[in-house]
């Protein structure tokens, strides 16, 4: 049974951040990721007759996004892709574990956990992700070595991941 366009649109809007993150993890370029996201969105609407159900849609979007991302890398002379097919298969399986989840809970948890970071960590997150600076630009803006920026970002991401897991389990200490 074909899926309705409105359902596709609803899922696309709900899962936009996740699908973008998936594409970005392959192409690692925000502009390219935006282009691929648009292509995949249009394809989903165009090929709605071939998609069985709302439950099947996230996997369909991911598969299409992977194919389009790799083709984009090829068109931009950036092949071979840094992660091989086997690894991408394994990651797809991981991405699929949260299919159908609303991003609202994760946003709430992330908001809670970001608020607990030090001002300096929040500043770094802002420069790198909200302002879109590269790690090197963040280093220049902060007066530290790029190496320190990546170390800090790694630590911050781990801290956030741990905090989000505790938040999800309801173990939250303000």
């Amino acid at each position: 049974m074909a899926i309705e366009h409105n359902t596709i649109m609803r899922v696309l809007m709900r899962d936009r951040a996740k699908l973008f993150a998936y594409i970005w993890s392959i192409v690692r370029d925000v502009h390219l990721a935006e282009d691929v996201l648009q292509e995949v969105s249009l394809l989903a609407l165009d090929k709605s007759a071939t998609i069985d159900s709302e439950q099947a849609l996230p996997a369909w979007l991911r598969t299409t996004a992977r194919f389009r991302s790799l083709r984009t890398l090829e068109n931009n002379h950036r092949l071979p892709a840094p992660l091989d097919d086997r690894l991408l298969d394994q990651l797809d399986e991981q991405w699929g574990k949260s299919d159908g989840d609303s991003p609202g809970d994760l946003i709430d948890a992330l908001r809670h956990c970001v608020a607990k970071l030090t001002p300096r960590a929040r500043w770094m997150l802002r420069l790198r992700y909200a302002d879109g600076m590269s790690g090197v630009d963040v280093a220049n803006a902060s007066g530290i070595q790029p190496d320190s920026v990546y170390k800090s970002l790694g630590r911050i991401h781990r801290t956030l991941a741990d905090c989000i897991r505790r938040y999800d389990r309801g173990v939250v200490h303000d």
Partner: protein
Amino acid sequence: MTDRPSHDADFAELAARYLDDRLDAPDLAVFSELMRDPANQALFIEICMQSRLINETLGVELEDERPVHTKNQTIDRRPKYVLPAALAAAVALALTLWLVLFGLQTAEDEPSHTSTSAVAMLTDLSPDAKFADGRHPLQLGGDLPPGSIRLAAGRAQIMFTSSAVVDLVGPCEFEMTGANQGVLHSGEMDAYVPREARGFTVVSHGVMVRDLGTRFHLRVDESDVTRVNVVEGVVEVSLQHGQGRPITLHAGDMGRFDGPAGTYALDPLAARTRITTATVRVDFADPETPSPHAAEASWNVIDQLNGVIDNLADTEGRPTTLSLSTSDFTGSRANQQRDQPIDWADPQSLIGVWYSFSKHRPTQASLELSNLIPGERYEVSIVTARSWPAEQGYPQARQAIYRPDGQSDEAVTLDAYQQGWVQGRAVTWSDLVADPMGRLTIQLQSPQVHRSAYLNALQIIGPMRVGDRETQP
């Protein structure tokens, strides 16, 4: 300076490098090997999601942050994918979907999957969107039942089930009253109404605007007077207490409608303009210390901080439909030292400058040019010259970022004293494209505390609706 991960680099650090494309082949091999571990795969996905959600949703909550112990805080020009670009991408996706759905659903069709109470869907939020009631931002893609949205700041986009799209500009209050209608209680909004949603209606303080397939802008001012500006197509405006038939407005028309009084005034320029290339110059002056030289006809002198000025004149003294809106400037410096007529080529004749400053946090001001021709290209220049070196005890540099929104032309970082004043350098963007509503927006950002972004003068060259000299608005 090293930029290679150390041998014992943490997986999360490698992931941060990978996502920034900063791993060479050997490091990538290490990263890939570590990635075989399912726990690391899960962490990698978490990092990707954290990064994206911070960009899309939480960026504004980090805006107040600043480095505590940093040195050499020169923020170079930002890459193109800064906040407005992220917003543009979101809008682009929403509009793409909207365009695809054009032929798929009519205003009369009720989507079968939606709850009976849903009349619209939230399709975009700008990173700085804040709701007046303090609730968390609504989720993108979520159903919106009839009711009010009170947007304190930023932008929010909703798409009615009819497929009409409304962009709300905070602060504003907009009430959704049906699948193809709403009420603008305060503030401003843009409407994009496809053919399928023809008949989309917005009511505002005794004024009813019925769209016949077009784009229009609506703004309620402090006196509850409703200003309607039609960008494309046709709208009908009816007054609750007015007499006679609805007033029809066409593309380029602009009118002010006082619903309670039952009166209205159309911009006389609207019907008597032609589109031609024009140059408009604006001097942003200090209201307390007027220039000893009378304003020249070729300049528009504005000495009221933050507001809307309509019908700017071009350098030949002809009225245009161009409007200029400024916001978030915090003050101005004196211009009593002006000892020569103002001259675009000489920034030192333009002493007296608006600024955006905060002692405790980075600041941002903006200027918006509207009623331009959608999709047309413009050359825009600003003079940003701080006329004295810094006072003793304050940082010497007056560096700020000057950035056009949603453009391929990039942000410019400039020291308003050394480059703006001493060197007399203006900031020029030669290829800015007016958005679908006929607007250009420029942000002035002072990313460091105790610094200012400045604005002395502006020049815009490009196609505009221009009236005859004797046509006074």
